[in-house]
């Protein structure tokens, strides 16, 4: 059985080529049928905004690359436009690539979780079409397990790599759960809205919005089912707020150290998280000196993101080691599967000879007691087991070795085996 993975990704092709090869969700069943008609034993199509990949298996006598060429010809009119961008990986490389993709090591943002879901959806679509069930099934289900292992054994997916997620991560480090926390958005900057959306999704239930123009505050508040507050009233309500997102266009500081000292005293020193994503800044940096107040501006959040990216890179090294280990294990398993029919064939042939010879011998010696017959059975079984032990060990040892095929072929010839 041959295995081929071919396609384009954000690493090899620009978006205008990726979108040409992309297969819309509704057309995937048709594409899978086409692959099977063209001679593929199994096929899976993974089509996302960052990658389009085809995973095929075919019988030994069919070249899977030819199937792909035919498919591209039929589907796109020509395969030539993808030259230099499309990659073709076989056997071990194909498995390694699939494992890396599933573990999000080949993603644009390393560690992002969406790709695993997309791969599972591609597998489910292929399963529905009946285009997986053998080798690809084995490879993909292992890939899902590898992704799970990478996530649990490394911290690759735990660190926020966008400014708005970094804000959520920090809020969690301060408050633990965001459930029931009150968020105040000052101003109507897009970044502020995005950060508030993430906080809201993470459990912050009360969202208040204030703006010099009340109608704008009301519009934004509606999105979160929140409350609009008059701009002049917000300082008096600040002590009830746990997280402040400042993104107003005010040219000066709207919160200073004294304000914050008063607010923190009113809160009985309960911590408060202030995110200043306005430029020019809305909150006096000295506010961070107040005990219980944690102020982060855009640069601070960027700093957190950069540190997280570095950390993810470190974790990715660990993840690569896991993938390598898993690929090795998978290859050994597949290699063993490759010689299993030969081993079974050898055992069956020897058993057939043994059974026939025992039968003949027993007919010639009718006076034997059942115990004596049993002993002959045992003895002959023991002889063929000892004879088979050598060749079986050799078959296992040579499975998948570069020059192993010759040894396997020799054993087949010596014993006149069909498989």
């Amino acid at each position: 059985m041959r295995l081929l993975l071919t396609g384009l990704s954000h690493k090899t092709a620009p978006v205008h080529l990726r979108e040409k090869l992309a297969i819309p969700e509704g057309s995937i069943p048709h594409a899978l049928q086409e692959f099977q008609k063209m001679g593929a034993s199994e096929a899976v199509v993974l089509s996302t905004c960052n990658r389009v990949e085809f995973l095929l298996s075919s019988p030994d006598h069919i070249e899977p690359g030819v199937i792909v060429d035919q498919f591209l010809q039929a589907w796109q009119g020509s395969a030539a436009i993808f030259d230099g961008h499309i990659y073709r990986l076989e056997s071990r490389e194909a498995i390694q690539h699939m494992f890396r993709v599933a573990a999000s090591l080949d993603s644009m943002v390393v560690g992002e979780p969406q790709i695993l879901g997309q791969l599972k959806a591609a597998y489910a679509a292929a399963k529905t079409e009946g285009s997986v069930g053998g080798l690809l099934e084995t490879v993909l289900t292992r890939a899902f397990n590898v992704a799970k292992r990478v996530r649990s054994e490394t911290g690759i997916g735990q660190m926020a790599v966008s400014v708005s997620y970094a804000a959520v991560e920090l809020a969690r480090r301060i408050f633990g759960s965001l459930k029931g926390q009150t968020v105040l958005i000052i101003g109507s900057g897009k970044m502020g809205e995005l950060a508030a959306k993430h906080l809201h999704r993470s459990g912050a239930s009360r969202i208040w919005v204030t703006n010099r123009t009340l109608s704008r505050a009301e519009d934004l508040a509606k999105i979160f089912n929140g409350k609009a507050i008059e701009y002049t009233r917000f300082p008096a309500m600040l002590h009830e707020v746990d997280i402040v997102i400042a993104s107003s266009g005010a040219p000066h500081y709207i919160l200073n150290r004294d304000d914050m000292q008063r607010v923190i005293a009113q809160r009985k020193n309960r911590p408060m998280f202030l995110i200043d994503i306005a430029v020019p800044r809305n909150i006096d940096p000295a506010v961070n000196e107040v005990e219980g107040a944690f102020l982060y501006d855009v640069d601070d959040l960027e700093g957190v993101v950069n540190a997280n990216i570095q950390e993810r890179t470190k974790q990715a090294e660990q993840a690569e080691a896991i993938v390598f280990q898993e690929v090795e294990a998978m290859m050994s398993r597949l290699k063993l599967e490759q010689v299993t029919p030969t081993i079974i064939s050898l055992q069956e042939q020897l058993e057939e000879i043994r059974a026939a010879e025992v039968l003949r011998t027993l007919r010639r010696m009718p006076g034997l007691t059942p115990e004596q017959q049993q002993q002959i059975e045992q003895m002959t079984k023991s002889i063929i087991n000892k004879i088979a032990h050598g060749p079986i060990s050799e078959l296992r040892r040579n499975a998948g070795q570069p020059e192993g095929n010759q040894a396997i072929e020799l054993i087949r010839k010596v014993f006149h085996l069909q498989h």
Partner: protein
Amino acid sequence: MGESSVLWLRVAACLYSIGLLDAIITVVRRREALFRIALSAFGLGALFHLVSIVEQGLAQHQLPVNDIFQTMSFCAFIITAAFLAIYYRYKAGSLSVFIFPLVFVMTLVGALRNPVSPWSNPVMGNTLLVVHVAASLAGYAALLFTAASAVVYLVQEKQLKRKQTNSFYRMLPPLGTLDDLISKSLGLGFAFLTIGMVIVIIWAFVGMGTRWIGEPRVAISFITWAVYLALVFFRVSAGWRGRKTAILSIVALACCMITWLAHAQLQKRLLQ
């Protein structure tokens, strides 16, 4: 001290104990479920307390501050009166977390001046002692958690302030979780330690008469309890967090260690 004046003082101590219960509930559950009842009981207790002091004064024809028991009782009454006046004027209910337990313990000490007959059954005395040791050790363990959590809180807070992020600090619990842990362990520890102390006061009073008050170990225990009480008060009433809680909880823990060492002899006695 006259029998009836001691009786009134003991009634006052019983009424003040509702205040102690309220303080414990406030610290552990963080809500003032019993405050109204406790305040009324406290007022009524103050009345009995006043009667006791007046009766003692009339009997002695002087201010009843002749020994440590009377002084304790008198001080407790002054604190009670001051608290009620402050509460009447400023509605400063949060002080009760500190005042209620303090007044109760002081009044209890004051009410234990007249010796009573020792335990008729020694099992009773030993049982009380075992409960005291168990409660005190549970209190120390809880304080250990408080101090450890407070130190971790400090580290996490510093990292957040310095805007540092790395995998080690990501492993530390969030500030909110640590704060919750501090509050809960502090509340439980306070409850255990108070129970342990009240039991041992009664035990020592019955077993040793009035001699117990002169024991240095008792003084150390009182100081430890007072530090714990201060920690609880500043935490609940003034919302102390971070550095202040960490320092005070470490001081309280050190006091507990000293108390524990001072009681090594007591342990020997238990083993015998």
